[in-house]
């Protein structure tokens, strides 16, 4: 290592030698950096899984424009939208078709665990609005009280899910009715519900008699191929100038919900805050270690200064230390972070993992922040006369 660094730096690797000379401090610093890395990875993992799971339900459908109530920050909240607006929107030459989308949470008493399924009521005859995987099986929904169940829902065992098919459906009681799942699709537990359920709009309305067929939760529009969703959105906004509505392209709706979940929802804010804390912990630890190291070697550094070493040399030594801490702390950090996220993913069924981009970002961040705090630690050296440092 020492030889390699000598080659690399073209000088004695003072930083490395200094670090390994004080093994206790070195080990403490490394575990500090690793700990900060784990914190950041877990929080980032949660945040990104939040993004992934937030977008999951959007992927069940295919549409270009979403009309929602003004207070609908997510697919699952907000008021209703009058169906008449869909007819208005269809007047636009670029709009080919529209579908009302109903959403509600459906509880499912599974004995020891009660789970809650985000349930979408859709028109089983409008398959163009559905993702191909779902559209293929949608015919079964034409039967009253039929459902397609999320095979990745929390609380559902793999064997149970695998057994569900047309000949061996799974029935369960909810909202005073008996729903029968004839087929399954891949959804997954999220931060809102434990899984998803698809039913026809007719079945949805019989599950929730208070809801009216004239007022779905969202209206999904499909455009003529080649039409610009943003341009159509602008036209619809003037056509339907109603402040209680929110008219967005489907893509914008997805982006806005992710941003909302990550910055407005307590969970999202907590994860963001966790990342910040992790970064701060890392900076404080590295800064502490490096400035203590500079303080301990002040006489030696002053001697080097007296010998004709400039500030660049000291910066080099401290940055060398910072990079070593950053690199060597990152390795256990990423391994432990990966382990923890994998474990959490098992328990929560959330899509928790460290992506390559995340790892690269955290690595670069660790090294850059370490180097910056190292640079700050050398500041007191810059001004002093060597003679005053002995």
């Amino acid at each position, binding site marked *: 290592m020492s030889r390699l660094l000598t080659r690399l730096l*073209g000088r*004695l690797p003072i930083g490395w030698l200094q670090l390994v*000379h004080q093994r206790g401090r070195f080990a403490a610093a490394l575990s500090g950096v690793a700990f900060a890395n784990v914190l950041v990875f877990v929080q980032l993992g949660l945040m990104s899984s939040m993004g992934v799971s937030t977008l999951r339900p959007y992927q069940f459908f295919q549409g270009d424009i979403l009309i929602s109530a003004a207070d609908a920050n997510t697919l699952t909240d907000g008021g209703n939208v009058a169906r008449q607006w869909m007819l208005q929107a269809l007047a636009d030459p670029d709009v080919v078709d529209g579908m009302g989308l109903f959403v509600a949470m459906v509880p499912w008493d599974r004995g020891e665990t009660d789970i809650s399924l985000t349930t979408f009521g859709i028109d089983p005859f409008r398959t163009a609005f559905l993702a191909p995987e779902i559209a293929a099986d949608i015919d079964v929904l034409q039967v009253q009280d039929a459902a397609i169940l999320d095979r990745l829902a929390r609380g559902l065992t793999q064997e149970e899910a695998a057994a569900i098919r047309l000949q061996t459906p799974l029935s369960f009681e909810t909202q005073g009715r008996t729903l029968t799942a004839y087929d399954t699709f891949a959804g997954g537990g999220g931060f809102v519900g434990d899984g998803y359920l698809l039913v026809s709009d007719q079945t949805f309305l019989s599950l929730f008699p208070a809801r009216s067929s004239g007022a779905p939760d969202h209206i999904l529009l499909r455009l003529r191929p080649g039409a610009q969703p943003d341009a159509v959105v602008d036209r619809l906004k003037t056509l339907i100038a109603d402040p209680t509505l929110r008219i967005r392209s489907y893509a914008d709706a997805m982006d806005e919900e992710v941003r909302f979940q990550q910055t407005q929802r307590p969970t999202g804010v907590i994860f963001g805050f966790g990342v910040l804390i992790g970064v701060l912990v890392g900076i404080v630890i590295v800064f502490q270690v490096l400035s203590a190291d500079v303080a301990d070697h002040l006489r030696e550094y002053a001697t080097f200064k007296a010998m*004709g070493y400039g500030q660049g040399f000291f910066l080099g030594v401290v940055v060398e230390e910072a990079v070593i801490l950053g690199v060597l702390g990152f390795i256990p950090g990423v391994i432990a972070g990966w382990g923890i996220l994998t474990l959490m993913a098992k328990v929560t069924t959330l899509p928790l993992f460290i992506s390559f981009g995340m790892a690269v970002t955290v690595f670069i961040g660790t090294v850059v922040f370490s180097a910056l705090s190292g640079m700050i630690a050398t500041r007191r050296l810059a001004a002093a*006369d*060597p*003679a005053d440092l002995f």
Partner: protein
Amino acid sequence: MPDEDLSIRASALNHWFGAGEARKQALFDIDLRIRRGSFIVMVGPSGSGKTTLLTLLGCLREIQEGSVLLLGQELRNATTAQNVRLRRRLGFIFQAHNLHESLTARQNVLMGLQVKGRMDREVSDKAAAHILTLLGLSERLDYLPANLSGGQKQRVAIGRALVGNPDVVLADEPTAALDWETAASVVDLLKQLGRARGTTTLMVTHDNRILDRADRILTLEDGRLVGDEDRT
């Protein structure tokens, strides 16, 4: 004596420590010319200002009043870059050895070479081993300072100052921790460098036996230069 034969020229040099009420003058009106290649010893009681003068002449301290010309370069108001460049041409041996605890004897000496820039590793390793051997440390090349005696550490510090072939050596009681035999060999080495390469040495010492070998003896008392004896 023309200026080009001079290593150091100080004129009307005054220096103070502290500020306000506590401000105290440490050096008074020092005028001094030191010829290239000479071996000069500075004596004086404790607190007389020897270290202060040495650090001023060696551009380790900012000049407050007066002027110092070191190797043809004015130190008063010199820039940081000028100071750094000049320091590389000096060998400073401090009262305390100030070795780096994480570096071996050889690595500490290498620091004196490396300051001049990138260097072939083998050549510099050899140079470091050579000077340490001259100083009687051939068996201790790869020892850390913690495993060396006081005298051995001081010799490493001397090696570090001399390995880069400095133009001026400034030494603050470098032989205090050494036995006479080693001290004498260090003095001989410095005198020999003076003759061969024109290296100038200014050494603070209390050792009378070294005084006998000096070309010139300066005496400092209460911050004033009170004696200047030419022995050549």
